[in-house]
């Protein structure tokens, strides 16, 4: 039985190409008719992959044709975009994909859910048999182990999630936090929504246009505040999200200092996503004030990604161990004579690959 993976991903193809081969409801059936004893299609926004097991060789072109959304499409034209992994390489690739190592954002966990969904769907339709069952169950185990034993999923990696994560690092539970959104732009709205999704209930919106403030307040279940009163609100709030189109800084150490006197024991987290900035950078020097502008949020996201990348080697080591173990167990199962033999040497890997 040959175990293989054929596909294209963000590494090899642009989004248009990936869309063309995103598979369809009949893909599993067509793949089985093409000669795959077992087949599973994993489709995400960044990859389209077929994991298959077959007695006979099924060409990459044939699989590409099965995946093509338009029957007449000339699949040959896209051949260079496709990659193919056989046997041990296929096992390794799936373990890396499930663990988020092959993702566009290293360590993202969404892929594991998508792989589980694809497996459940293939199992329900009967397209996935014992071979893919063993392979995917092991892949899920590996992904879990990688997440538990490394820091690969640690830290926020988008500007919005950085803001929310930092708020949690400062205040812990956000349910008691008071938030003021100053300027009702699109980015403010996204950040406010993210905070609400993490438990914020006291949210106030202030904007030069009171209509827009009211509209956003309704959208995020908040309360509109007249623009003239926003400075007064700073005495009470814990988090300030600002994104106005003001040419001059709205907050400076001089006008913030009197407000801070009354709240010296409570931190103030300011997210300034306006360009030009609404808050004087010197405000960050004040005790208890944590100011993050768009660049610093981006920088934190990059630091998180760098931290994740540092964990790749540890994750690869876990995967390599599982790949070796999985390949050995499969080859023993397929070749009972070797059950009595010791663990196969590295030199036997080609044999094991062909057995798979």
């Amino acid at each position: 039985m040959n175990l293989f993976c054929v596909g294209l991903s963000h590494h090899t193809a642009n989004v248009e190409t990936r869309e063309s081969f995103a598979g369809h409801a009949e893909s599993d059936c067509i793949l089985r008719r093409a000669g795959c004893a077992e087949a599973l299609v994993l489709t995400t926004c960044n990859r389209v992959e077929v994991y298959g097991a077959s007695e006979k060789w099924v060409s990459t072109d044939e699989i590409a044709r099965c995946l093509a959304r338009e029957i007449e499409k000339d699949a040959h034209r896209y051949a260079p975009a496709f990659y193919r992994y056989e046997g041990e390489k296929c096992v390794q690739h799936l373990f890396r994909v499930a663990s988020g190592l092959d993702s566009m954002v290293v360590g993202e966990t969404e892929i594991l859910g998508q792989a589980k969904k694809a497996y459940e769907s293939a199992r329900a339709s009967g397209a996935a048999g014992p071979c893919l069952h063993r392979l995917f169950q092991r892949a899920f185990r590996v992904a879990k182990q990688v997440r538990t034993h490394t820091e690969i999923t640690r830290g926020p990696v988008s500007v919005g999630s950085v803001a929310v994560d930092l708020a949690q690092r400062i205040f812990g539970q956000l349910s008691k936090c008071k938030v003021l959104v100053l300027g009702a732009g699109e980015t403010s709205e996204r950040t406010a929504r993210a905070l609400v999704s993490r438990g914020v209930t006291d949210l106030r919106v202030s904007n030069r246009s009171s209509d827009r403030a009211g509209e956003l307040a309704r959208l995020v279940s908040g309360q509109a505040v007249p623009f003239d009163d926003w400075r007064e609100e700073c005495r009470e709030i814990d988090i300030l999200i600002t994104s106005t189109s003001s040419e001059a800084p709205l907050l400076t150490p001089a006008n913030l200092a009197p407000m801070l006197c009354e709240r010296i024991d409570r931190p103030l987290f300011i997210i300034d996503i306006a360009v030009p900035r609404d808050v004087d950078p010197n405000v960050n020097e004040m005790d208890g004030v944590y100011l993050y502008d768009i660049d610093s949020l981006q920088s934190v996201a990059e630091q998180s990604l760098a931290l994740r990348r540092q964990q790749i080697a540890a994750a690869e080591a876990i995967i390599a161990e599982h790949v070796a173990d999985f390949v050995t167990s499969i080859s023993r199962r397929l070749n009972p004579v070797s059950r009595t033999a010791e663990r196969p040497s590295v030199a036997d890997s080609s044999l094991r690959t062909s057995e798979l």
Partner: protein
Amino acid sequence: MALRAGIFRPGQFSFLAIGLGFIFQTAFLSIRGHALGRCPLTNLFEVFIFLAWSVALIYMLVGPAYRLSLMGAFTAPLVVLLQGLALIAPIDIRHPVKLPANPWLEFHASISLVSYGAFALACIAAMMYLVQERQLKTHQLHSIFYHLPPLTDLFAAITRLLWWGFALYTIGLVSGFFVGRPLPYVQVVCAFGVWLLYGAILQGRHFRRLAPKHVAALCIIGFSAALTLLWGITFTAQAQPLP
């Protein structure tokens, strides 16, 4: 090793390890106490062991309550340091004569050392606070940042530990007047100095005159002063054996 590798797993392990160490410490102090016929605080060796025991005790009471499990990673080295000093340094010097029991003196010494445990934990929490605060201010977030408790939780823990430590220290200080003999003047003045320092920190905190960062920094200074005082008292006591 975990700290160095940048991988922090603040699970149950640190708590269990300190718990196990605490059981052994308790057993040691109990055996020693029975042998001496009094609270085992007769030399620097016993003081160090008792102090390590107090730190472990307060950690076990405070750590889980405030979800400060990573504090174990900071507490354990302090306990190991105190125990290591006690075991390695030649400080286990027995008094030539058996010291008589003095309940007030034993109470004064033991309650004061337990308050030192609370101050030590407050100092550790303060260090964690300053590390977290520094990273937030400079926008340089390292791996440890994602494992430290939130700033507000840490500050709440510091405040509570300070109150507990201050209350116990006050009881220890007052009980010192009932030991039945005059205490050295310098010791009394220094002890009041430490009491005033912690009192000032708490007053500044309570009336919102000190920013959390300054409270944290003063916690570290306060504990350093308290340790210096303890060192002085122990040496003085060894030079002048108790009646």
